[in-house]
């Protein structure tokens, strides 16, 4: 064997080598396979131990992704609108063990749950059912403590307006899907969802709130005094605006009747809308301020020139008459303080039809004023500009604008001639001046201030003069158009004024719709008897808040002493 084997050896060796090699390869292959398998197991083990699933899987709740809304605050940081969490109860019927017991417990804890309805919801094959949306924290805790398996709650967000009706028209409100549909809320949405979300941090730990220009204390003062005035004079509506004339910021804007934005159904009636921007009104004599500024700026009239107001002005078949007829030749300041229609119409006719229109366009009264508030109305202008249209538009007839627009124009005329678009967002004086538009010369503005102050100290607006705060103003009484004709007893009275008049900073507009005469007003229902005293009450309340320092001249002190005596006597 060995002999025969020996010669074969080399061949055998040659044969054996690949065979052993092949055997070793197989072992290596198996080793490699096991190695990979163990590595996979080890890897999976590491993955499972190091990154465990944090939560058990829950039934997924169908919920639209809502973009976070920023809080809204007033100029002093008072909260006007915010999101709060409210709990909503839901159930996963597949997890409920004893449905009868669950129904019994739930109806006992939450009385307004209907047993039948509940049974229908809990016997479905679905894995999710709402039990009750937006429950109180007490109800939530009570249900949670029942410990029914499969019954739980989620926190939902709800928009609330803690100041209630105080900021209703300016702040606006959102619909059920928290989409802004009125006021600043809509403005935020119109800036794009990204803008709205950028104000609110996604984590919602620290939200950068949207800051408005309004001051809620002024809102309260305006709303309170206007409501009292509406009650006293049986007016059907009222409105008030406070503006900073140097920045164009709206500090207060109240339109009555208002509404509570927190109420569930938002079917607000038409008379609850914002009359100051969504409505147009003939502001009457308030527009005279514009005519005076125009005449003084074009130089067709000066403070010393005079006009004949002895006879009614006849243009074609129309006669223009005065309400407080003086039947005299009046100087320009006298026309202003007596609110003479004849005089003002003559001043406008002196300026001329073309230039009158040009001026109205310059101050923006020909176009719609658009602020941040989505509700804005287009001005109603005379269809055809004739001599008569010029004469009547001069004192505000046939010429209806948003009250806010009227306020903005007067603010621009009084602040040195810088017309600025009013804003509801905080703005600095520098920013406002950049976008302001020069409309009249500073001297014209100076003269107009003189006329306003004169009118409040001895003219039709004298009841607005709160002693110490140097009020200046212009009154307006417009007859309302009823069925195409001017009504004799339905009026819109208004007052527009500014204070302190030596360096005007704040503008106030007060408007009353259809005030009725009362015994105290001796049967009168013109502006001087209702809108003006209301303005005085408002100024008395808001001037200290605005930091206006009272200054008393010797005459003022005399007047005060007299008033005191009257009160005592």
């Amino acid at each position, binding site marked *: 064997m060995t002999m025969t084997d020996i010669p074969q050896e080399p061949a055998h060796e040659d044969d054996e080598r690949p065979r052993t090699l092949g055997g070793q390869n197989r072992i290596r292959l198996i080793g490699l396979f096991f190695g990979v398998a163990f590595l996979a197991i080890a890897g999976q083990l590491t993955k499972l131990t190091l990154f465990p699933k944090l939560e058990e899987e829950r039934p997924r709740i169908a919920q639209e992704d809502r973009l976070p809304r920023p809080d809204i605050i007033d100029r002093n940081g008072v909260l006007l609108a915010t999101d*709060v969490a409210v709990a909503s109860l839901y159930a996963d019927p597949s997890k409920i063990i004893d449905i009868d017991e669950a129904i019994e417990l739930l109806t006992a804890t939450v009385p307004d749950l209907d047993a039948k309805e509940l049974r229908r919801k809990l016997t479905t094959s679905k894995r999710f059912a709402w039990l009750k949306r937006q429950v109180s924290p007490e109800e939530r805790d009570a249900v949670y403590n029942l410990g029914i398996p499969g019954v739980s709650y989620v926190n939902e967000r709800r928009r609330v307006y803690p100041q209630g009706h105080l900021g209703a028209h300016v702040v606006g409100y959102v619909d059920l899907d928290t989409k802004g549909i009125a006021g600043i809320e809509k403005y935020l949405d119109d800036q794009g969802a990204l803008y709205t979300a950028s104000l609110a941090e996604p984590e919602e730990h620290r939200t950068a709130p949207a800051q408005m220009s309004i001051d809620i204390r002024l809102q309260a003062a305006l709303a309170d005094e206007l409501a009292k005035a509406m009650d006293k004079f049986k007016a059907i509506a009222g409105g008030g605006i406070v503006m900073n004339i140097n920045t164009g910021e709206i500090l207060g804007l109240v339109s009555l009747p208002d509404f509570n934005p927190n109420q569930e159904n938002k079917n607000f009636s038409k008379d609850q809308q914002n009359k100051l921007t969504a409505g147009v009104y003939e502001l009457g004599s308030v527009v005279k301020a514009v005519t005076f500024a125009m005449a003084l700026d074009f130089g067709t009239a000066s403070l010393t020139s005079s006009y004949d107001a002895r006879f009614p002005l006849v243009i074609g078949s129309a006669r223009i008459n005065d309400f407080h007829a003086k039947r005299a030749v009046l100087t320009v300041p006298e026309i202003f303080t007596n609110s003479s229609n004849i005089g003002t119409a003559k001043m406008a006719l002196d300026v001329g039809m073309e230039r009158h229109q040009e001026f109205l366009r310059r101050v923006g009264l020909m176009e719609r004023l658009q602020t941040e508030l989505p509700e804005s109305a287009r001005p109603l202008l005379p269809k055809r500009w004739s001599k008569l249209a010029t004469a009547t538009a001069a004192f505000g007839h046939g010429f209806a604008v948003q009250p806010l627009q009227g306020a903005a124009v007067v603010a621009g005329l009084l602040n040195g001639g810088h017309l600025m678009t009013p804003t509801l967002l905080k703005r600095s004086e520098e920013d406002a001046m950049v976008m302001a538009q020069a409309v009249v010369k500073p001297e014209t503005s100076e003269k107009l201030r003189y006329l306003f102050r004169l009118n409040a100290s001895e003219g039709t607006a004298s009841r607005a003069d709160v002693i110490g705060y140097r009020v200046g103003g212009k009154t307006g009484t417009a007859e309302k158009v009823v069925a195409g004709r001017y009504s004799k007893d339905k009026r819109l009275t208004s007052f527009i004024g500014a204070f302190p008049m030596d360096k005007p900073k704040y503008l106030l507009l007060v408007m009353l719709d259809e005030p009725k005469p009362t015994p105290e007003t001796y049967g009168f229902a013109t502006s001087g008897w209702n809108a003006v005293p209301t303005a005085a009450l408002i100024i008395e309340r808001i001037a200290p808040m605005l930091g206006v320092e009272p200054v008393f001249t010797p005459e003022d002190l005399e007047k005060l002493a007299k008033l005191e005596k009257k009160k005592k006597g």
Partner: protein
Amino acid sequence: MHKFLNALLVITVLVSGFVLYSLEHTTRGLERQISRLERGIEEEIENTRFLNAEWSSLTRPDRLRKLAEIHLGLSTLQAKQIVKLEELGAHVPAEPIVKLEADGSDPIGAIIDKMQ
């Protein structure tokens, strides 16, 4: 030699297994704590929002005015009541209106004394 190596490996496996599981256990504990704290923070944030809203609603200027009128007898500030700092001297009464010290009771003084 091989036996020793194997024994060593077995011990290593057991020890490392134990270490791994105890580590995992503490990690899970910490994770639970984190999520509990996070939930707590979230809850507190929600509470803060809710309380802010409530505060704003309770300090509504119209409500405060009504309360001040009823309980404190306050009314609208008159322009005449505002006095400049340099004119303050002229408005100080010669005799204090309320003579607390004369009666031997001075509650504000007592508080100041206590603080000192």
